[in-house]
């Protein structure tokens, strides 16, 4: 796709008239035109993205509270966080949540994509149905999970009891580890369709003649997957997993609806903790410090998934787009 686009380098434009009044020249000059065309997008992104990003880092070095502008206090917020066990617990929770959920999402998503890539009746409809959990707003499906995970009237507990597998109700969101697995499950449920559908799109670009050649050569299913499917998919896996890890790491909505970080901070993620400290507690500076502390993790995640998975592409001598 991109290669094709790069191949058709546009022919040079007719040279703008060298002299004449300023305004017509500005209208034709490519760089000026580019400037005007970029203006709306750039204005939004600078005012509401780049500036707040910088401001957030600055706030983390101040003791700003809601309704009171703060003074520069250096690294005090970070020193305070360093000794804060709740913060470290939230780091642990976030890492656990991200690693487990992303790994499972990848495994199930890839499996589902492979299944959907088979020759199936109603293929288009199946694909459409699979994507529904991704369409429905997270908060609304999280509320459905909240009801499914209810401590007394959970249909899951009821069904398991009827089957004779358990004797009492499962306290899904009230117990430390149960709560962690429950929110991870809800996150996986929400994320699998995205991974599956994007990987499916990648699978469909793999030429079937490769598979036919492999089958004729007597390759097993696993060999086909390992030697053809997986290598062909690596670039798209890199992108999909970068997004998946990024959005899982910074997740807020699901936790906020299901547990608000409880019980006893067992599901407190860095995002929910920073909301709690900054907006509910009013300590904007401290909340901003927690949010800023997420940035190195995010950069690391992006670099690992990007370079780790793209390496194969470089080895093959393709230029890194």
């Amino acid at each position, binding site marked *: 796709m991109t290669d*094709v*686009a790069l191949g058709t380098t546009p*022919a040079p434009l007719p040279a703008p008239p060298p002299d004449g009044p300023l305004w017509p020249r500005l209208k034709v000059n*490519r760089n000026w035109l*580019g400037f005007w065309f*970029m203006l*709306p*997008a750039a204005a939004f*992104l600078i005012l*509401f993205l780049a500036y*707040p*990003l910088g*401001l957030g880092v600055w*706030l983390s070095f101040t003791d700003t509270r809601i309704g009171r502008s703060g003074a520069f206090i250096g690294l005090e917020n970070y020193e305070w966080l360093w000794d804060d066990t709740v913060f470290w617990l939230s780091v642990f929770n976030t890492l656990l949540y991200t690693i487990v959920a992303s790994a499972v999402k990848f495994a199930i998503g890839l499996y589902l994509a492979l299944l959907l*890539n088979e020759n*199936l009746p109603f293929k288009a409809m*199946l694909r*459409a*149905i*699979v*994507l*529904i*959990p991704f*369409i*429905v*707003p*997270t*908060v*609304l*499906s999280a*509320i*459905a999970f909240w*009801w*499914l995970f*209810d401590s007394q009237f959970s*249909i899951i507990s009821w069904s398991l009891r009827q089957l004779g597998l358990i004797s009492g109700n499962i306290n899904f969101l009230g117990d430390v580890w149960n709560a962690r697995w429950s929110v991870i499950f809800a996150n996986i*449920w929400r994320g699998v369709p995205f991974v599956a*559908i994007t990987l499916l799109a*990648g699978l*469909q670009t793999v030429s*079937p*003649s490769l598979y*036919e050649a492999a*089958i004729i050569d007597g390759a097993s299913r696993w060999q086909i997957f390992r030697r053809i499917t997986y290598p062909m998919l690596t670039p798209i896996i890199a992108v999909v997993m970068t*997004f998946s890890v*990024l959005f899982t*790491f*910074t997740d*807020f*909505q699901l936790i*906020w*609806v299901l547990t608000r970080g409880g019980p006893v901070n067992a599901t407190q993620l860095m995002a929910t903790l*920073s909301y709690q400290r*900054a907006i509910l507690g009013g300590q904007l500076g401290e909340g*901003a410090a927690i*949010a*800023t502390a*997420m940035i190195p993790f*995010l950069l690391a995640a*992006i670099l690992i998934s990007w370079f780790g998975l793209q390496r194969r592409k470089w080895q093959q001598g393709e230029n890194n787009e």
Partner: protein
Amino acid sequence: MSESAITDRAVTDRLAAKLTRPDIKLPQATERSLAIDTPLDDHTQGMSYLERLPKRLVTLYLPLSMILLVLLFPFYWMALTAIKPDEQLLDLDRYSPFWTWNPTIKHIQKLLFETHYPLWLWNTMFVAVCATVLSIIASVLAAYAIVRLRYRGAQWVGGAIFLAYLVPPSILFIPLASVVFQYGLFDTPFALILTYPTILIPFSTWLLMGYFKTIPYELEECALIDGASRWQILVKVVLPLAIPGLISAFIFCFTLCWNEFIYALTFLSSTANKTVPVAIVNEFVDGDIYRWGSLMAGALVGSLPLVVLYAFFVEHYVSAMTGAVKE
């Protein structure tokens, strides 16, 4: 405006003439959304006849239906809860929990006539449409400039926009809250209308760049030679050909707006201004043991607009999602 001596009419006529010529290839953009499942269908059949039905049943249909069951069950449960009478909701042993013989619309009625729910729906819709339209306009201009004007540094700007897509709202909401407060936008719909584009513009610019690249440069050259300005080219040549891309970007942006939570939670405080996701979480959750019916009704009604939109534009939706990832 010297070049507008050539009228718009003349430009479109010339173009029409070009388009009917068989040797000029028509842009692929319109076919792109279909390309996902059509071209390979014939071939994938090639070897699968070698597998017999029992094997396919175990390796394919069984796992597939289990995954689908898990993916869809929460929605079934949501819909069922929304129409169950209260006394059946909590009594799992006396009434079969998986079905109800006497559905009620009490919960939905209560939702629509006794709460601010219609207002919240309207707020969400208003914010989503405004933010999406603003973002699409800005993205069309930016994407066109990056792909076709190729001003100095366009490549870098394209990369920067991709990076902007990777900045998550959870990092930005605290400083944005103080920015919103400074600009005097706190607790107004404009707080959301102006901040949502930061999420939407990077995505839709990236998506539209891909679409614009598929439009043959020759078409634009013809228009340029005929004296069309860049603006005329964008509006009369490029945009009509990029309509599938525009629809994809629009739908995806709209869904993202509807789904957004943390900004709406932080920047809005009065009940009347809230959007559906925030309002349901904050206003419906009380100690009432019978709240589940109305909660599920609220979640169901709040999801319906998106699901309906999705049902009509599945292909655009899928191509938006995969297109943005593939570029």
